[in-house]
């Protein structure tokens, strides 16, 4: 199976589209929104109470655990990707080969799944105790 660098262009296009959407919506709200100026409206206006604390307080460490779990399973997906690309080929060749390959992946997944079961049973992911 051959490929050309240009086959990866969609990734770039998607990135540009994602960025462009943000920029476009931000600009559009500025331009499209009705603006009525008057002396009173533009006047400096102060009232209310002093803000307390900081908007950017440190968040719970539990989020970090979720992020770490995400990265770990991300790596697992990377291992599954080349396996999945080939799997239909193996199925078409002989069923013995396909079963062997399936079992190999099952062992790998099983190891991680056991770790995941441990994490859940341990209650690390429960938010409120």
């Amino acid at each position, binding site marked *: *199976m051959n490929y050309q660098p240009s086959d990866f262009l969609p990734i770039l296009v998607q990135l540009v589209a994602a960025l462009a959407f943000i920029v476009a919506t931000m600009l559009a709200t500025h331009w499209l929104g009705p603006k009525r100026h008057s002396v009173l409206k533009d006047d400096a206006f102060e009232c209310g109470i002093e803000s307390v604390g900081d908007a950017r307080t440190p968040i719970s460490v539990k989020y970090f*655990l979720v992020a770490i779990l995400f990265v*770990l399973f991300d790596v697992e997906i990377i291992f599954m*990707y080349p396996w999945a690309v080939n799997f239909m080929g193996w199925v078409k060749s002989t069923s013995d080969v396909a079963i062997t390959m399936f079992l*190999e992946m099952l062992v790998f997944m099983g190891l991680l799944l056991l770790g995941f079961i441990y*994490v859940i049973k341990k209650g690390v992911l429960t938010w409120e105790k």
Partner: protein
Amino acid sequence: MIPFVFIAFIVLTVISACVVLWSNNVLYAAFSLLLTFFGIAALYVLVGADFIAITQLLVYVGGILVLLLFGVMLTNQNGNKENGKNDIIGTNTNRLIGFAVAFGLFALLFFTFAKANFVNIQSNLFESIETFSTTQNIGVLLMTDFVLPFEVSGVLLMATLIGAAYLSSKTKV
């Protein structure tokens, strides 16, 4: 066309890497690291390492960077007193030693690659852009010849999972 794209991505990678180095604001550094990772992924595509490029995108751009930004959010700093913003500002210390180590490593690798005679090197670097996809071969090898490292890396990932869960789980102090 290809040389132009190649150089463009090199410039993107180098400039964003320099921003990572010189920016004192950790958040800016993290975001320009995103561009560095992305540029490197593009370079992998251009040299014909498509699987590594996907890995780079999925793990580094998608995973590691999220982790990094979470780290920034978790960091407790009471804001910058001078301008009232609460950016996380890093400081550079030991610049000289860091520079010396980095330069030494760079010099070592530069001369290694400059003097090496690679067996399968192409004389015209940008000529053949039709490249063989590596993903399928990697898949076959991973499941046959290299099945033991594959399974054992499952053990590695599990040990990491347990270690991470242990270290970041909350115990009452």
